[in-house]
């Protein structure tokens, strides 16, 4: 039993291998949804981010509690080691290392650090811009905007780092003939002598339990820390009087100034008389003075509501037009929609003013 184990000892314990390949899957999902389907698959992207968070937390714990080669303090990070390794590489050789080689170890440190920052900035965007997730009530919209830029930069850095990592793996595998991919699958490296205590199955089991524990604790945190309800406006009179011809638009969709203009011109309201009696007029004007895009800190308030247009239309803001540029007049004339100002036909959460991506449900027959 002892003899073959000495020949090819387990270097990467099971929890570490599981971590590695889960992370590959999760990062792949997050990258594809982030780069190609940002709007439609934002939820999937975020779930991938949640999973990644759990994996990273686990990896940090395992860096202290794991088996010998999983622990951070065994990483060969010394400058001398790196220099020697690089010199060797230039001469066309690469020594077989039991754990990571020095350059590889730095690569891992870089990847883990980037991923941690990526996840943190992701939470900031999710909370600030979309008003969702555990940080929704803590982070304002503007902060979320900055978070997004950082998040995108980090994603670029990650893509670069992953390319280098893959390049390294290819070089190791095909030029130096070190089967490191196989090692990450079986955990064993042939022909190396391992340092440290041999990996025990009980230790690995404990690792998997820690991972499950982290996942459970995280899910608990996420579900109990649900998004705060939006400071919801509700004014019966407004809902009724401004909801007769089109849905009553959420007050965060126009600025105080634009609402005032609209109220001033009700008898010639986009080609119709929408005038009100004096009391109703007063009540609605007061309501829109107290609730409007300037009093809501949401993405829609910032990108649509606060941009005044010459005819006060939200559908003429640049953001609105960009978001709907794939929809045609034919789409809008669909019997279940009727007009582009019938936001509720496609946005199931329009009344709440959220306009979340996952609440867009196009009627059958509308392609986009």
């Amino acid at each position: 039993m002892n003899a073959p184990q000495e020949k090819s000892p387990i270097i990467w314990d099971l929890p570490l291998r599981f971590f590695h390949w889960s992370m590959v899957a999760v990062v792949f999902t997050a990258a594809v949804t982030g780069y190609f389907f940002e709007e439609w698959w934002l939820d999937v992207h975020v779930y991938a981010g949640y999973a990644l968070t759990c994996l990273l937390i686990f990896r940090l714990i395992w860096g202290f509690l794991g088996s010998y080669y999983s622990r951070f303090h065994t990483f060969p990070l010394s400058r001398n080691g790196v220099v020697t390794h690089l010199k060797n590489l230039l001469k066309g050789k690469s020594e077989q290392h039991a754990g990571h080689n020095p350059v590889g170890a730095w690569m891992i440190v870089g990847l883990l650090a980037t991923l941690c920052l990526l996840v943190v900035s992701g939470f900031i965007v999710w909370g600030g811009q979309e008003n969702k997730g555990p940080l929704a009530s803590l982070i304002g919209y503007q902060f979320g905007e900055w978070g997004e830029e950082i998040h995108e930069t980090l994603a670029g850095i990650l893509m670069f780092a992953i390319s280098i990592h893959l390049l390294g793996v290819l070089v190791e595998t095909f030029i130096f003939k070190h089967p490191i991919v196989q090692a990450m699958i079986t955990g064993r490296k042939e022909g190396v002598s391992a340092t440290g205590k041999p990996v025990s199955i009980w230790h690995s089991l404990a690792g998997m339990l820690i991972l499950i524990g982290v996942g459970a604790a995280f899910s608990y945190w996420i579900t109990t820390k649900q998004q705060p309800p939006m400071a919801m406006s509700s004014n019966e009179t407004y809902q009724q009087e401004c909801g007769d011809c089109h849905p009553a638009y959420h007050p965060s969709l126009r600025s105080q100034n634009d609402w005032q203009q609209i109220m001033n011109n009700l008898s010639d309201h986009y080609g119709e008389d929408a005038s009100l009696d004096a009391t109703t007029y007063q009540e609605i004007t007061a309501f829109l003075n107290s609730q409007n895009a300037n009093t809501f800190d949401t993405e829609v308030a910032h990108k649509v509501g606060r941009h005044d247009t010459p005819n006060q239309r939200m559908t003429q803001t640049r953001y609105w037009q960009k978001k709907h540029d794939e929809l045609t007049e034919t789409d809008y004339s669909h019997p279940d929609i009727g007009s582009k100002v019938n936001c509720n036909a496609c946005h199931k959460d329009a009344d709440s003013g959220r306009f979340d991506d996952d609440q867009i449900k196009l009627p059958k027959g509308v392609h986009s």
Partner: protein
Amino acid sequence: MKKVICLTAIAAAFALATPAYASSILDEYRNQAQQENPSFNGFSAERGKAFFLTQHATGKAETPACTSCHTNDPTQSGLTRAGKSIAPLAVSVSPDRYTDQRKVEKWFRRNCNSVLGRACTTIEKGDFITFMQTQ
């Protein structure tokens, strides 16, 4: 005791008034029409129908006729220009029509201005409701 009588009286008034309300709006238009024009001799569903179907085109360009939104058939649902469905105007299909004076007046004010570019006369309003009651 006085209170009870008062409340009963009020309740009774409401109970009696509600079913009769639809025609009470029409009654009011009738009184008003008589005052405005002594030779007035009743509303006409025929005139109401013609008014409803005419392409007036004297108001705003977007809305030349009542039928622009309410369709030619009062028993069918209409559609606002913003794509929202409007319940039919015919009393047989929408019994709660023409029962709330503020609502009726509000929409006559708006829609007549949009379609005709002026307020509707009392006779036009009475004819219109009379026509809708036959539908």
